[in-house]
Structure formats: structure tokens, C-alpha cells
């Protein structure tokens, strides 16, 4: 009844069954491809074990923790009670710290020396890659504890982010208390405030020399704006510009050899160059407008400045040795206070946005603008020397306060200073 050979339909069905069998047992060894974009980790978790023996000098660990957390890029983990804490000489149990979700582990110790000084040692471990990131031993006096802690925080910051830390830098700002004005110099964390100048008349526009040893500023102590250069080591100062009319807005060239200033000695407000000792005055801008707030680009080739030559305050740029200026800001009708970033790739400034004065960042390569604050009366933006944070003054409840924002707008900080009305911040350079 049936043919000796299977009918065509049986062979087809058999074929289909075979195909099915192959599809269902799809090779489990085939590669799965997954796309991952963006980022999700705001703060790198770091385990900072209290430094052994630190009670003798009043605490190193706390300063390091505060520095790293204040940067907004780290989260200091709670160290659980452990029978034995790791020291800088032992190899940590990496899987155990990984289980505690630490990215990195910092351990250290403090020991008193017979000569009255102290030795502080530390070791940083990369828990993720399970390797030792080395460490340093310092010999120091008790007065140098804070500075040493900041240097350790810088080390940790650099090893884990690849960027230079700014915990050992200093900031300058002006505080008004009652009818008194004070130019203060403090550590980047606000500690160690020292008064460089006190006056019953305003002090404005502090500007750090590139080597961090001097600060230029404008003082009204003789009832007129005069530009001074003040040495921080010995408090001695000299006059840079005391011409008739107004002398203001000092800005150092990156080589420290020239200072740009705004003078009204020839009518209007124009930008001049002068040596820090006040000699060799040369005029740079030649407009009939107000040209002011000069700032050198980090390579020293350009001078950015504010001008209303186009009818509204905008930012322009010209060759640092003189020449025609080009306009740089085109969005909005009020853009002032140019501050080139340390890498020269962007420009921070103040823009008026819907009636509010806010900090903006201009990408100099593609001309894109990003407004990074949402406050109201921001002024005097100043980049940290690693370019990551921007310090500025704003007003909260009628009082001037210092604030900082990261260059991507994501991290915001309020800086606490010792009270009063705080203005005119300037972030100092790396001290080599």
C-alpha cells in the first residue's frame, strides 16, 4: 500500500523537525552584545581607615575625609568595627573590602619621633584591581599636619581620578564686616584664614600671581581705586597703577611678567599692560567704549575682556600684544567677567539669563554655551587650577556668600567662611 520510498511530505516534515531541533538548541556559546552608554557613579566609594596613632596630633583622617567628600567625587565609607585594622604594612583582604563595596582603601599611621617631629605614612590600595597604589612617608612638625593631610588627599584624588587635586591650594576673597573690609587668604577648605589687608574702604578684584606668592588687588584706601601688588610672604606691597582717574581689574600674564589693568587716565575705560613694579606702561585697546576685565588665556597669547563697544556688554578677545578684537559671546544681551579655563578650552563668565545673573561656560571649540548655576546674583567666577570646580560669589538672603560649582554643573557646594558679607573670590594656583 505504501511506496517503498517515503513520500515527499514526510521528507519535508522530517526536514522541518531537524531545523526546529537546531533552532531550539541555539549555541549557548554565541556572544551576547550589550551597549552601555553614559555613566551612573557620582561618587567613588573609598574606605578610609583611621590613621593609627593620630590622636597624638589631633587627626589627619578627618581632614582627608572632608577634602575627598567636599570634592563631590568621593564617598567615604563607614569602616565597620574590625578585630584588626589593616595597616600600611599589611596586604589587605581585597575580596573582603570589595564585598564592602569599597573602590579603594586608604590606611596610614602617625608616629612621634624623638626630635619632636612626626612621621606620617600612608598606603592606598585599589580594591577593584586588587593592587597597591603605593604611598608616601612624610616627616613634619605639628604645624604642618593640615598641609600634610591635604597632600595625602591630593594623592588619593589623583590616583583615583587621574586629575590633579586642589586640596593644597588657597583661595582669596574679600569680607565686609560692618564698615570694615578685609582681604582674606584661606586654605581651599576655608581653614587657616589670614588677613592680608584690612581697610575702611573697599578692596576689590584680588588676582593671584602665577607663582602664588603675590596677590594684586584694587584698594580704595586713599579714597580712589589704586592697583597694588602684595607679597604674601612678608606683607610688603607696591603700587602698580595709581594714575589719575580709575585704576582697576588687574590680571597677571601666565609668565608673571606683566599685569593687564583697566585705566581711565586717557578718558573712558581702556586696557593697558604694565610691569608688576609699575613700569613700562602700554595701552592695548583703542576703542571709545568701555573695555575692562582683561584676562589672559593660559598660553599667554590672547586677552579676553568685557566691552560694550557693540552696544551691550559682551566678551571679546584680542592678541595679548595688541591687535584687532573679535567678539566671543553671542547669546544673550549681557555677558561679562571672562575667565578662561586652565586648559584653555572653555570660558566661564557671567550672563544675564531671564533677569538673573548666572555662571555660564562657553566651549571655545564648538561655541556651545551651558549655564551651570540657577541662582540669582552670581559674580566673579574663578576656576580651580585643575579646571574642575568654579568658585563664585552669590547672594543668599541679602548676604554675599561663596559657592562653587563643578564645570559640568553637577556638583554644587556652599563654602562656609567666618561670616560677614563675602565677595570677590579668586582661586590660587598650584603651589609647586
Amino acid at each position, binding site marked *: 500500500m505504501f511506496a517503498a520510498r517515503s513520500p515527499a*511530505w514526510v521528507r519535508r516534515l522530517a526536514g522541518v523537525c531537524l531545523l526546529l531541533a537546531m533552532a531550539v538548541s541555539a549555541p549557548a*556559546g554565541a556572544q551576547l552584545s550589550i551597549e*552601555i552608554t553614559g555613566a551612573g557613579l557620582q561618587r567613588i566609594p573609598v574606605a578610609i581607615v583611621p590613621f593609627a596613632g593620630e590622636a597624638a596630633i589631633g587627626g589627619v583622617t578627618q581632614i582627608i575625609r572632608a577634602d575627598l567628600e567636599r570634592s563631590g567625587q568621593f564617598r567615604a565609607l563607614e569602616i565597620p568595627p574590625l578585630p584588626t585594622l589593616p595597616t600600611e604594612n599589611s596586604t589587605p583582604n581585597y575580596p573582603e573590602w570589595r564585598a564592602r563595596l569599597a573602590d579603594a582603601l586608604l590606611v596610614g599611621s602617625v608616629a612621634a619621633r624623638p626630635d619632636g617631629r612626626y612621621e606620617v605614612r600612608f598606603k592606598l590600595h585599589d580594591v577593584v584591581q586588587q593592587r597597591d597604589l603605593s604611598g608616601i612617608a612624610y616627616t613634619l612638625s605639628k604645624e604642618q599636619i593640615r598641609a600634610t593631610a591635604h597632600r595625602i588627599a591630593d594623592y588619593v584624588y589623583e590616583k583615583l581620578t587621574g586629575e590633579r587635586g586642589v586640596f593644597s591650594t588657597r583661595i582669596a576673597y574679600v569680607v565686609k564686616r560692618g564698615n570694615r573690609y578685609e582681604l582674606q587668604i584661606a586654605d581651599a577648605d576655608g581653614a587657616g584664614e589670614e588677613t592680608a589687608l584690612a581697610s575702611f574702604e573697599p578692596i576689590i578684584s584680588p588676582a593671584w600671581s602665577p607663582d602664588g606668592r603675590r596677590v594684586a588687588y584694587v584698594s580704595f584706601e586713599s579714597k580712589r581705586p589704586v592697583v597694588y601688588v602684595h607679597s604674601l610672604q612678608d606683607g610688603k606691597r607696591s603700587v602698580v597703577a595709581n594714575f589719575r582717574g580709575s585704576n582697576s581689574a588687574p590680571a597677571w600674564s601666565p609668565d608673571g611678567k606683566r599685569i593687564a589693568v583697566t585705566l581711565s587716565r586717557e578718558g573712558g575705560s581702556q586696557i593697558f599692560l604694565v610691569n608688576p613694579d609699575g613700569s613700562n606702561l602700554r595701552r592695548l585697546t583703542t576703542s571709545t567704549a568701555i573695555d575692562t576685565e582683561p584676562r589672559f588665556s593660559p598660553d599667554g597669547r590672547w586677552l579676553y575682556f568685557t566691552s560694550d563697544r557693540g552696544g551691550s556688554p559682551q566678551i571679546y578677545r584680542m592678541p595679548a600684544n595688541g591687535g584687532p578684537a573679535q567678539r566671543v559671546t553671542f547669546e544673550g544681551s549681557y555677558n561679562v567677567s571672562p575667565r578662561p579655563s586652565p586648559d584653555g578650552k572653555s570660558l566661564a563668565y557671567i550672563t544675564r539669563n531671564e533677569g538673573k545673573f548666572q555662571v555660564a561656560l562657553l566651549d571655545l571649540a564648538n561655541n556651545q554655551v551651558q549655564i551651570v548655576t540657577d541662582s540669582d546674583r552670581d559674580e566673579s567666577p574663578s576656576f580651580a587650577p585643575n579646571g574642575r570646580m568654579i568658585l563664585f560669589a552669590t547672594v543668599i538672603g541679602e548676604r554675599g556668600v561663596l559657592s562653587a560649582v563643578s564645570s559640568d554643573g553637577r556638583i554644587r557646594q556652599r563654602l562656609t567662611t567666618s561670616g560677614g558679607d563675602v565677595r570677590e573670590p579668586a582661586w590660587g594656583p598650584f603651589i609647586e
Partner: protein
Amino acid sequence: MQQQLAQEQQRIRDQMIREQAERERLALAQAARDRALAEWSSRIRAKIRGNIPSQAVQAVKGNPEAIFVVTLLPTGEVLGNPRMVKSSGNKGYDDAVYRAILRSSPLPKPENPADFRRELELRFRPQD
């Protein structure tokens, strides 16, 4: 003869119905597997992404791609080290995503162990 033809036609119709049913079953099974893989991929993506630091992404110009291959144990642990197959051109970003992979070990496992794949190709870009 007539009857044989009718029977033959019936068998062909039945076969076509069976084949259709098989195709549908196959498609459903494939869709289920695709969903399972997509769901597993999504959990892996979320975990690794959550371990990439924002500052690493910020420093990268443009949107270059870095590609890593990882080998997994059935527990989800990454076996050995992730292998870079293509650099983004930015060492900081390459390092950051490499560490993010290690931080994320053990990776999430698929709901159905049968969906487990031993090798993953991870393609990273700083921007969406």
C-alpha cells in the same frame, strides 16, 4: 483515484497547518528568548553603568566607542580580566569602563539558566 487525490490534498493541508503551527511556536520561543536576553542585558547594563564614574565620561570629546569582551562563570563572576577589543582612543575612559566592569562582578544572572551566555561583548560610549 479521486479518493487518493483527496486524501493527498488533505495530508498536504494538515502538513501545512502543522508547519504553520511549528513556525508560530518557533517564533514565540524565539521572541521569549529575545525578551529574556534583552531583560538580562538590561540588568547587566544597569549594573555596569552604575559603576562608571561621571567624571570619566565628562572628559571625553565626541562619542567614541570602546569594546570589551568578558568571560563569565555561571555565577556571573567575571573570569580573569576584561579584554579590550577596541579602544575609544581615550585612555581615561577605557580605564574607567574597565574598572566599572570589574566593580560590577558578579554580574546579574539570567532568569533562566538556559539563557546564560559565557561570553559578553560590551560596547561603551560616553554619551547616549
